[in-house]
């Protein structure tokens, strides 16, 4: 199968923008095209990720997404869920040999939609679950309690994820939430959904990410610093929370597929940095375990060790992660883009000190992470 290269990316800031969704989407797409020096109609195909009905209040996406992403009069496909799926679809288009260049664009304006909890309550099945008002935060609270109970993870260890990620976000010009916080601040924030506190939960943010992918030959022609896709994997669980072990999620399955494809035997040693979706702070710890970056049940001591700090042996979320910026569907592609920028050495103020050869990006959506996607990038 053909190699896939990331040519370039552009990211929008996360704070609420006064631009319309159409103008807001257009800007990063135009930025990527101008940086690479190609025209919209020279891109072979477009794949986009958005949530038109619930997160955009639109239905149908065709009214804004097509003109603004540049997909007008081109082969296009669109997916909902997490934008890492769109990245995988776009990569498959290149691997197939049918297309040489594919633009991936993902868009959401969190400033225009109501709280994610309002929307995710609609994601529940209408007969058994929705009448009870269950949504992603209540599901995550159940998962957190189980995690703390089974492995003795402390509230302080969960709070450290917030301190670390918001600290990193101070250096990220695009981050939505920028404030220096302490473990005490997090622990003193309101217990909104016990054992989850307000500061352990991600905000809702604006966000557009545009990324140009190309075949090996084309990528080398279009950029001096292509970033190569080495592996990907994804897996979907059943909806019903009671049917699942919430601490053995499909992330393990997704990761093992990605590692196998990338030829990674020991992820903790071979991966230089990771961008992990963590809409709830404790999920970063759990997901480090499930990705094999530390041992099962050791997510708490992993953050205590300092390994995941910006200056640690395996920095996690140097961008500030989802806790600092949560455009619902785009957050996965943001993780891929941030990882690619770290490999290119173009992450700016939040570039980590050591050389990044291999990076991991993770995306997730659904109650307690019903779906997971993992992408491995290399230089």
């Amino acid at each position, binding site marked *: 199968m053909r190699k896939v290269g990331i040519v370039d990316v552009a990211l929008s800031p996360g704070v609420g923008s006064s631009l319309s969704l159409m103008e807001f989407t*257009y800007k990063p797409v135009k930025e990527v095209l101008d940086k690479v020096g190609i025209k919209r109609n020279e891109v072979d195909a477009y794949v986009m990720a958005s949530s038109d009905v619930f997160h955009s209040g639109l239905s149908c996406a065709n009214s804004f997404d097509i003109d603004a992403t540049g997909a007008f009069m081109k082969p296009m496909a669109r997916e909902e869920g997490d934008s890492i799926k769109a990245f995988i679809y776009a990569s498959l288009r290149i691997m197939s040999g049918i297309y040489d260049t594919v633009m991936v664009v993902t868009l959401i304006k969190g400033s*225009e939609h*109501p709280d994610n909890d309002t929307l995710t309550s609609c994601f529940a099945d209408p007969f058994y679950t929705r009448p009870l008002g269950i949504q992603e935060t209540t599901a995550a609270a159940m998962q957190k309690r189980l995690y703390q109970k089974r492995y003795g993870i402390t509230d302080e260890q969960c709070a450290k994820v917030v301190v670390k990620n918001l600290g990193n976000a101070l250096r990220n010009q695009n981050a939505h939430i920028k404030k220096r916080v302490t473990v005490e601040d997090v622990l003193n924030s309101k217990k909104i959904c016990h054992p989850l506190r307000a500061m352990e939960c991600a905000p809702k943010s604006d966000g557009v990410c545009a990324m140009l992918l190309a075949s090996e030959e084309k990528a080398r022609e279009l950029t001096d610093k292509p970033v190569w896709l080495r592996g990907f994997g994804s897996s979907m669980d059943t909806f019903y929370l009671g049917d699942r072990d919430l601490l053995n999620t499909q992330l393990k399955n997704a990761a093992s597929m990605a590692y196998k494809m990338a030829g990674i035997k020991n992820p903790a040693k071979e991966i230089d940095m990771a961008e992990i979706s963590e809409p709830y702070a404790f999920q970063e710890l759990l997901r480090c375990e499930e990705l094999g970056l530390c041992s099962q049940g050791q997510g708490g001591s992993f953050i205590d060790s300092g390994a995941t700090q910006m200056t640690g042996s395996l920095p996690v979320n140097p961008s500030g992660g989802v806790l600092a910026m949560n455009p619902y569907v785009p957050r996965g592609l943001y993780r891929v883009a941030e990882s690619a920028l770290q490999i290119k050495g173009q992450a700016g103020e939040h570039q980590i000190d050591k050389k990044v050869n291999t990076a991991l990006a993770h995306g997730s959506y659904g109650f307690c992470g019903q779906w997971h996607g993992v992408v491995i990038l290399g230089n």
Partner: protein
Amino acid sequence: MNKRNEKPRTLKSVLRIPYEMAQGPAWTHFFEGFKQKKILGTKCNECGRVLIPARPFCPRCFEPMEEWVEVAQEGTIVTWSYVNYTYFGVTADMIPQVPVTVKLDGTDCGWWGGLIGGFDVKNFDLVNKKVKVGGRIKAVWRDKVEGNMYDIDHWEIIK
């Protein structure tokens, strides 16, 4: 597998979700024009087309559309329909309607911009006689304009 002869149920469901959508600079300016009973288009400096309603960028050329042009309030009917049925959101008092696509003079695209009116549109034979593809219409504004899509009350047949 229904052994009890129970009639399978349905559940009625209506979702209400609030949004606050940014209109952005381009569409804001377009509707500010409405407040002065003006129809504003944007011109692409690459292809030279004038598009209405105003766009922030040219969808074909993918360049920003920064030049504003006031266009005519008269144009030619491209196509039309006669809507005479109800569905959730469209009640009996709202029909019949005669939606029209119009190409305003000085523009380079059709505009799905409103309803034909100014005479008894309940009479289909009369509508069918008066409304013709290629016929001419002009905008009739409401007395009180507020800067939204309701400001043009209807389109009047002029030829």
